[in-house]
């Protein structure tokens, strides 16, 4: 048989398998994983848009007036200068500062002003401004940080990881459980060709599902941002960012897909390899540089446009767990994942050659 024929067979197998991967009942939760952040970002965008509209209808003041408010000012002076607030809440509480003292009455008053982009929440205690908290409802920078955090901590470490587990483990193991694997083994195709076709189907499906999920989340992230600001961003660094996030998502599918496909052929219980790999990826930051490179996450994080955000206030142990290794240059990252995938697929090919149909034991 010619090489061209085998390549055509791989494509035919992938085409036939794709429908099963996309519409298998076992894969439906993968859609949930992929689309969850898009849903959250969309809800947040709707909330932000709603809040902006509500504030606008209540009336906006100039940014200069908003900035002019200083702590220690009296409430009457602020209202006289800034006008009627968009929200005004007053509450009286009784407080006892020491056990032996009498209770005193404290009047708290919260005013909210809006300058078209920012809200200022002013807290007055007994008529004196105690705290001023200014928040920009929609900030491109904050949205980007949120997306970056979501991509590193949710998409790469959880969604793509478990999504690939679901998709690639099922390629052989699922058919064994459905008692339909023999149809493939009775086709006039080499076992490694069959493996290639199924892997390609899984990779295409994972890439499409998670690529679409990441793209939708990106759109939802930009939705509430001011149109002119978004246009400038899209004309500037956005495209490169999207490409780098996409590349790292595809590489993650490539790497995790290979690992889980091999695991599905080598072990019966998918939980074991999933836990082992998850633990390995989690402690990766602690390992020596050489060992860090035997990890999918190391390479795919290197391709991301921004490193994972780490809250400086987080406990040291958490920060150590979350700390990424020094990133690899992108060609090294690309070659690294491909090499890692080639190695695991080689072992998978050996396993699939030994594969037998014995449904009674599966």
């Amino acid at each position: 048989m010619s090489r061209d024929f085998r390549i055509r067979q791989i494509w035919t197998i992938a085409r036939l398998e794709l429908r099963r991967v996309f519409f298998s009942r076992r894969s439906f939760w993968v859609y949930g994983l992929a689309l969850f952040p898009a849903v959250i970002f969309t809800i947040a965008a709707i909330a932000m848009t709603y809040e902006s509209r509500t504030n606008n209808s209540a009336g906006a003041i100039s940014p200069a007036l908003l900035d002019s408010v200083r702590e220690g000012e009296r409430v009457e002076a602020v209202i006289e200068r800034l006008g009627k607030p968009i929200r005004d809440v007053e509450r009286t509480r009784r407080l006892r500062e020491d056990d032996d003292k009498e209770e005193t009455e404290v009047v708290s008053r919260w005013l909210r002003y809006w300058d078209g982009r920012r809200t200022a929440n002013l807290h007055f205690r007994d008529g004196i401004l105690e705290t001023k908290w200014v928040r920009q409802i929609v900030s491109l920078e904050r949205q980007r940080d949120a997306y970056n955090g979501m991509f590193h901590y949710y998409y790469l470490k959880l969604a793509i990881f478990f999504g690939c587990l679901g998709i690639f483990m099922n390629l052989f193991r699922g058919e064994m459980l459905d008692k339909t694997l023999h149809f493939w083994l009775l086709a006039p195709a080499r076992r490694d060709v069959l493996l290639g076709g199924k892997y390609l189907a899984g990779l295409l499906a994972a890439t499409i599902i998670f690529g679409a999920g990441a793209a939708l989340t990106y759109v939802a992230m930009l939705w509430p941002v001011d149109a002119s600001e978004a246009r400038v961003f899209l004309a500037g660094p956005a495209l490169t960012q999207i490409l780098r996030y996409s590349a790292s998502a595809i590489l993650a599918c490539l790497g995790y897909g290979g690992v889980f496909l091999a695991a599905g052929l080598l072990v019966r219980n998918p939980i074991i390899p999933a836990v082992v790999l998850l633990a390995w990826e989690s402690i990766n930051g602690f390992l020596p540089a050489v060992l860090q490179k035997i990890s999918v996450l190391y390479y795919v994080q290197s391709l991301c446009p921004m490193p994972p955000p780490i809250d400086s206030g987080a406990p040291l142990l958490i920060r150590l767990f979350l700390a990424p290794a020094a990133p690899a240059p992108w060609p090294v990252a690309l070659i690294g994942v491909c090499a890692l995938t080639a190695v695991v697929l080689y072992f998978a090919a050996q396993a699939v050659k030994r594969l037998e149909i014995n449904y009674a034991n599966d």
Partner: protein
Amino acid sequence: MSAPEIIFDEVSKFYGEVLGVNRVSLRIPPGITSLVGPNGSGKTTLMNLMTGLVHPDRGRISVRGLSPRDPERLMRITGYATQYDAAPRGATGFEFVSTSLLLWGYSSTDARKLAWAALERVGLTEAASRKVAAYSKGMRQRVRLAQAIAHDPDVLVLDEPLNGLDPVVRAETIAMFRDCAARGRHVLLSSHVLQEVDVISDQVILIANGMIIAEGRIRNVRDEIEEHPSQFLIRCSGAPRVASLLFERDHISEVKVVDDRNGLLVMTRDRNQFASALNDIALAGHTIESVVPADENVDALYEYLIGGQR
């Protein structure tokens, strides 16, 4: 050039500690060959071994010169209708047959044509657009058969292929097997319906406990079982008198007069001497209307060879 054969050479297969088949050596020529044996005797294991669905722990298998470890070439000439009842989820009968043909390298157009032709041969064209999951057991049997024959293979392996088929389709299917065999192809099937095997097979392989206990043409297999007397049914007039004459011969071990008293069921340890004795009786003036073997069928062979294991 000798006819292509299916060869099992000292093949053993164990599932963990459970025996599948043990030291099986066979040479199966083209034609219709039936694997007969009780449940769990190793029939399906033999079929799975020769199609590469399981691999032998010992020994060598060759299917018309091809190894089961080379599915790329083997499955091009082989069609296997397995006993596994599951079908790919959501596939219609037509899709089930046609999509598999795409893997043979047929174009979509050719795959569709071949699939229709195969479905027509098993009488499933009307149900072709329905989902396989909604088929009856017999229809699922037929659609698996259609898939196995769709690419016109040289080796047809069929696990219990006649189960659940109605009489008309059954007759057509048997005719199809015969047609394949007449064209020098291998048709290897397993069956529990012994009378059917008897009628359609060129040869049988009797298997029990993972071991081959007899193989060959049914008549030849019967001849090899010397420890069991041969049985003949004689239709004659004056049956009691003929019975007494036969009893005088040493090789006759048992004679029974049949219920209508116009026949005898005779057991002999020597077929040649029995023929000679019958000749003598006829010359003595007794009318012998017919003599037919009563145990040259798979049922009897099964009983002799496997006995209480059934």
